[in-house]
């Protein structure tokens, strides 16, 4: 998927994560901060990168502010931000559930 515009998904509430994506020239630049950076920083980074790869995002600037979200919430927020950045809105149809959007 090609990132066309800047988009955000998620909140800064506890157990949530806020993901911002914007277009970039080349490659994925990930800026991560987390309330549980010490214990889970590496895992969160891995989940974010893996989700971006699954969605076929080759280039993007991505900022992640984590407040202790479960892995499945991180995936959901990354997916939502990417779909929004590709032009999908709140009434988007035919999301590929079980396709590129999966566990």
């Amino acid at each position, binding site marked *: 998927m090609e990132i066309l515009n800047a988009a955000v998904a998620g909140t800064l509430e*506890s*157990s949530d994560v806020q993901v911002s994506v914007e277009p970039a020239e080349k490659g994925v630049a990930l800026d991560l901060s987390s309330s549980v950076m010490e214990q889970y920083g590496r895992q969160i980074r891995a989940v974010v990168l893996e989700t971006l790869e699954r969605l076929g995002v080759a280039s993007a600037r991505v900022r992640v502010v984590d407040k202790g979200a*479960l892995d*499945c919430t991180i995936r959901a927020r990354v997916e*939502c931000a990417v779909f929004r950045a590709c032009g999908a809105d709140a009434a988007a149809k035919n999301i590929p559930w079980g396709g590129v959007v999966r566990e």
Partner: protein
Amino acid sequence: MSAEKRSEKNRLRRTMLFLSAQRPSLMKDAYVFGPDSVIFDLEDAVAESEKDAARFSLYHILRRVDYGNVERIVRINGLDTPHWREDVRVCVAGGADGIRIAKCETADDVRAVERAVCEAEAEFGVGQGRTLLMAAIESPRGVLNAVPICESSERLFGVAISGGDFRKCMQTKYYPSGVEMLVARGQILLAARAAGVQCFDTVFTDLDDMEGFRAEVVQNKEMGFDGKSVVNPRQIGIVHEIFTPTAREIREAERVVRAIRENADKGVGIFQLDGKMLDVAFLPGAERTLALAKASGMYEGDL
């Protein structure tokens, strides 16, 4: 993962806990509160601009979090919105046990959702018929159509009366006596019982008035409801306490069932037990008490 487990149409549903699908923090572990069912809400609890985000969160929660024996129902957006079809797709793809249809007014509303569910089950390779339905009746027209709604689909396990919108339509408000809801509650109960589906009462939103809540739940039980939607985990224990038969009621029901069966074997139709006249008409009630007791883990006997 319970995606392949078949949903149970007539399971115990004393409490259905509403949780906003906009808040992953609420959805990630609400099974700890022990409701019989949860209702992940894509409708009113989710802001219009966050409908997409709520669906992504819901999908992953449904796929990933093990709710054990807690049934997972999703309230979808109304049929007059651009959202409900995508809501149905995500529910089926995620493996929700059931879908709650908001603002249901006619049997055709149920059948429209049923068709979308069938298509989604085919699309995502989910067993045909796995996804159950329930209808929330929120308007005078819905109440008047309660019978056809209750008989609209094999997938429909029950109906709920929803008080907020209904009271507004009727130009009234909440009263502790429940008089403003009496006809609507009675009408959907009659329809549900005639059709053989379950019936649930509306939420009680004043969390500071636990006495008022308790009184309403007692009235629900006396009227014959199967359970109630709840908005806060603190309400769960009270509903379960009121809807679960007491040890004494269970003992009595057990004696009634035994006595009726033994007398029937002897060719006796009507007889006395502890000074009360009993006949076969008392059997279904006593059996239902035992079934409820069994389902709530209060009875392990052989009846």
